């Protein structure tokens, strides 16, 4: 057996950032407080921006600097702010505490969720290697990581039974797609990417309103009651 070849410093650094993005996703997976989940989402978005800056610097793609700036402004500042504003007051009696509704909303125990997460991430990792992609942006390993991020975000949305973490799962899924875009189409026209980001902002507002509406009707963030509506 031969030792694994060392990647270049750029490849290694980009892959480390990609893996950190995946770890942030796993962090959201097990987080019990909505506040911390939003914080992790902001952190994950900052990591995406850092990766964009790295790719921009090494591959000489100046428009990625703009993308990084817009990403930080929107995903790390605006969206967490909007989410917190919309969720404020959803917990009766505790105007600032929105945390107690999502603690323990997971359908499975922690050890099983981590194992499922690992299995799903592994599937993402290995299925991406068969794709014939050689992008001009971030290294190809980051593509498999991004697939894992998307899949883990799916599991997060499936196993959590509260609207808030389902929304966070959807937003972080978009982060995974941004990561994939950095690999596959780093030089995607900037206007397109910015349009996508504003789409996301719209989704945040819609989700925020939905969360409020659901909370106003059911007085809980949990979605378990919704099954009663089945005919």
């Amino acid at each position, binding site marked *: *057996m031969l*030792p*694994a070849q*060392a990647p270049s*410093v750029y490849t*290694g650094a980009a892959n480390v950032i*990609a893996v950190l993005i995946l770890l942030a996703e796993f962090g959201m997976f097990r987080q019990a407080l909505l506040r911390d989940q939003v914080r992790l989402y902001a952190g994950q978005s900052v990591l995406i921006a850092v990766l964009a800056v790295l790719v921009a610097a090494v591959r000489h793609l100046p428009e990625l600097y703009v993308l990084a700036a817009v990403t930080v402004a929107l995903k790390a500042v605006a969206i967490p702010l909007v989410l917190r504003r919309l969720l404020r007051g959803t917990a009766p009696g505790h105007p600032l505490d929105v945390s107690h509704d999502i603690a323990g909303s997971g359908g499975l125990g922690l*050890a099983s969720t981590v194992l499922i997460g690992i299995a799903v991430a592994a599937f993402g990792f290995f299925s991406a290697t068969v794709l014939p992609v050689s992008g001009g942006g971030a290294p190809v390993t*980051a593509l498999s990581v991004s697939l894992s991020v998307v899949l883990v975000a799916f599991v997060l949305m499936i196993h959590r039974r509260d609207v808030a973490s389902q929304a966070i799962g959807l937003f972080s899924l978009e982060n995974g797609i941004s990561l994939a875009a950095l690999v596959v189409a780093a030089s995607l026209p900037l206007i397109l990417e910015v349009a996508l980001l504003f789409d996301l902002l719209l989704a945040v507002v819609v989700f925020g309103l939905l969360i409020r509406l659901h909370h106003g009707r059911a007085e809980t963030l949990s979605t378990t009651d919704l099954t009663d509506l089945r005919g």
Partner: protein
Amino acid sequence: MVTALLPIPVIQVLQVLTIIGAGPGVSGVIARVEARLQGRRGPRVLQPYYDLAKLFRKEALAPAGASWVFLAAPVAAFTCYLTVPLLIPVLTTFPLPLGYMGDILGGGFILSLAGFLVAVAALETGSPYAQLGASRAKTFAAITEPVVLFVVFTVALLTATDLPYALAATVRSSAGQIIRPAHVLAAAALFMVILYETGRIPVETHSGTNEFGMIEEARSFEHSGPYFALLKWGSAAKQLILYTILLNVFVAPWGLAATRQPWAVVLAMAALPAKACVLGGVVAVIDNSFAKLRLFKITEFAAAAFLLAVLGVFTLYLGGG
């Protein structure tokens, strides 16, 4: 001018002496830093040495009914801790002959043999606390074992061997080897295992007698005198051994002697405790910034470390790790 080179056996003895000599000192520095961070003055840095000297002068007692195993275990465990430094790069970058006695897994086996012997001695006492500690230590050791295995897999994939000297040389060879995700993840997972193995927050409080949360610390409740001193000295040596593995193999394999020149070896003997004290400072900061986990939450801690180690192996298999 030709300076005399140190004979290889001398360096090999110096490896062991560095570990057992500096072990209590590193513990003392950590206790001191931790106290300063909490606004206390804290014990002297040399306090662990004074403690050991005091314990060696005291008489030894054994519980009624305990057999010779109870008294033999501390000596045997200490012998294990004397053996492991021969296998890992403590002072030199070049492998010493006895370093090939065992690989990274062999060192792990000897360390767990020591833990097993201490647990058996604790069971021998009949004291509920010591037995509880032994039982918990073995339970959680079984949970952290897979993490160590995956870290070893990562090392094996990185170097095509599982010799600690080989990984240290690989890490020194280029910056790309340091920043690659597999290396970063394996080092982080190993650090979490070390936090568990040395009984630090968030797994266990290192000082004080909170019986409900005690794991490793509870096992030596019934030992006294020189035997207790050997156990304490052994756990300080084990801590420095684990720090040495993390520092000299994974994170910072610099400051080691590349030749057998006496001054290079002496420099390495000073560099290792210095690096260990820096790492100890980090551990003290972690000690002060996190709360102790509830006993049944320790599996979550182990699950996080396992996740890191498994992701490390995944990234390697993709070729880009």
